[in-house]
């Protein structure tokens, strides 16, 4: 069994709390992404799973087995470092076969498994090249292969794609997913890039300031963020969050956004949530889930980013700024006033004080 169970896991460095009481169950064979900005505690969590750091509190279980006191060499996890930690004085072949050789596998087995892995990662022509003369993209593959060849039941990856160039990142996302599907390891993947998490993971755990914010399937986290942090962090761009006050209009309950005026009426579930809210709420909607319509929220366009298939339209100024994403031929230019209508069922409300979803 290679499920990973984190129970009340915490880590303090002197006076600094890197991780606060985290409970998380990663199932056997699951691809879990730990997602959050720099310093959110995701790497610390992973280092504790690998045994590179000792928890200040709580337990880590692999299956039913408590990992306390088990040194990292005997945890049997594969680990891909952010900087790859390639043995630069060795060839690609020596790197790939390192673990097998050190653990005393028979020569023929070392040979066979190294070649198989090289073939899988398309490294065969490079096997006898020295690792210090290879591009970052190749090093990245070698790092993955070097761990994967050991066929670990648990595979940990620490932002493996943050150093490779943008185009190659897309290729590697696909390959990593394939790798995981083929070997069915339990995969824990640390990243600050929500796109990587969304495209690869079975489930994502969003973290901030050492606190686990939400765990769920990517699409669920996207659709129903637990709080404003998750709402803004997931999505590209993140969810628009506008402060306002629930008001009754003749067409039903809506939110008064101040300078931006009153929103279109809320759909039934949101209206019920707004009824319970005391005082201000945060009115959230996804930039992609909008249309241009007469009854929309009116705002001047401050900036238009046309990125390939889509255009990100930046609207408003001061505290009341938001974005909308349209097809790239949207008729909106800087200075125009446009009316943006959020899809009624895609609107989310959050408590203005706590930031929690209502």
């Amino acid at each position, binding site marked *: 069994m290679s499920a990973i169970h984190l129970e009340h896991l915490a880590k303090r460095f002197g006076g600094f709390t890197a991780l606060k009481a985290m409970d998380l169950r990663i199932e056997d064979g699951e691809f879990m992404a730990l997602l959050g900005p720099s310093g959110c505690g995701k790497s610390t969590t992973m280092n504790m799973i690998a045994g590179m750091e000792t928890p200040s509190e709580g337990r880590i279980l692999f299956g039913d087995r408590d990992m306390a006191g088990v040194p990292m060499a005997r945890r049997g996890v594969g*680990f891909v470092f952010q900087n790859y*930690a390639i043995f630069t004085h060795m060839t690609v072949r020596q790197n790939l076969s390192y673990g097998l050789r050190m653990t005393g596998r028979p020569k023929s087995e070392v040979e066979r498994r190294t070649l198989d892995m090289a073939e899988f990662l398309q490294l065969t022509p490079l096997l006898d090249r020295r690792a210090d003369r290879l591009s970052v993209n190749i090093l990245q593959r070698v790092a993955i292969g070097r761990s994967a060849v050991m066929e670990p039941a648990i595979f940990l990856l620490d932002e493996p794609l943050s150093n490779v160039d943008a185009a190659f990142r897309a290729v590697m996302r696909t390959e990593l997913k394939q790798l995981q599907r083929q070997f069915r390891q339990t995969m824990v993947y640390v990243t600050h890039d929500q796109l990587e998490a969304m495209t690869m993971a079975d489930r994502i755990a969003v973290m901030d300031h050492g606190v686990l914010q939400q765990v769920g399937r990517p699409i669920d986290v996207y659709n129903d963020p637990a709080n404003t942090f998750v709402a803004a962090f997931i999505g590209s761009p993140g969810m628009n969050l506008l402060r306002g006050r629930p008001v009754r209009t003749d067409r039903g309950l809506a939110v008064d956004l101040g300078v931006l005026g009153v929103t279109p009426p809320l759909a039934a579930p949101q209206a019920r949530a707004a009824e319970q809210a005391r005082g201000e709420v945060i009115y959230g909607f996804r930039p992609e889930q909008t249309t241009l319509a007469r009854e929309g929220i009116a705002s001047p366009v401050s900036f238009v980013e046309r990125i390939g298939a889509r255009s990100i339209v930046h609207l408003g100024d001061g505290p009341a700024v938001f974005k909308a994403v349209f097809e790239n031929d949207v008729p909106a230019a800087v200075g125009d006033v446009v009316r943006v209508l959020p899809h009624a069922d895609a609107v989310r409300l959050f408590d203005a004080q706590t930031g929690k979803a209502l």
Partner: protein
Amino acid sequence: MTLADAPLAPPVPPTPAEDGARLGFRLTLPAQVLVLFIAVFPLLMQLYISLTDWSPLAGVAWPRAWEFWNGFANYSDLAQDGRLWAALGRTALVMAVCVPVEFLLGLSLAMLFVDEFPGKRVAYSILIMPMMVVPAVAGYMFFMLFQSGGPVNGLLGTLLGRDIAVAWLSDPTLALVAVMIADIWQWTPLMFLILLAGLVGVPQDQMRAATLLGASAWQRFRTIALPRMKTIMIIALAIRVIENFKIFDTLYIMTGGGPGVATETISVYIYEVTTQDLIWGYVAAIALAILVILSVAAVWAMKRMGRAAA
């Protein structure tokens, strides 16, 4: 006429490569002249004197040493000088014992110091202190320590529970041992420092990666740390071999090369010949011979280093 008034050469752009080479030559010219004077001149002077029978008591200044020309006589004497060869052998023996011991001790200490432990800073300061002691003072210190009634015998006596009166510095074998102990005490810290610098330079992520791939501590050292430390190890060894070959000050104060010639190393021998026998032509010949031996050794070490670094 000031520089600014000087007619400027027409701006013919040279190609970058030759431009760089010419500029490099001009910039290093003063330094090259200096090197010429510091290194080449004394060497030629020495070679010249070594071919004569000149001595400072001869009554003429060294440029006129040709008046005492005796060709290669000094060199043929050198080949038959039993005391010289004995001194050379002794020097080699000291080196063969001290350098490996210093290396292994230094390496072990360095490996201890890579990881954090309480009191590391204090231990570190104490460890490198011997290196900072002036060798002459160290010599005097060990001279006192190894007296018959000195602290070393005292300590041994306490440990063994009986009176010990070993005459360390007057026994030919023990005197050599004492001298080696002093050298190891003083120079292990240098090895330690250099090797520690090398060990710290081994990327910790690679060590961790190796651990996670199942390598034992010894395997990690052998496959990851050692290959990266090869160059620095050779440098450390080269420094100590060269330095040890010239071992003099501490030793001379402790034993004066004695008893008899029991601890007379090559440097001590040269010193004796220079200050007492005053046959400088012969001294120059010995010095040149040693220089040749050391140079050959150094070139060999450099070649090894070059291969290790590639």
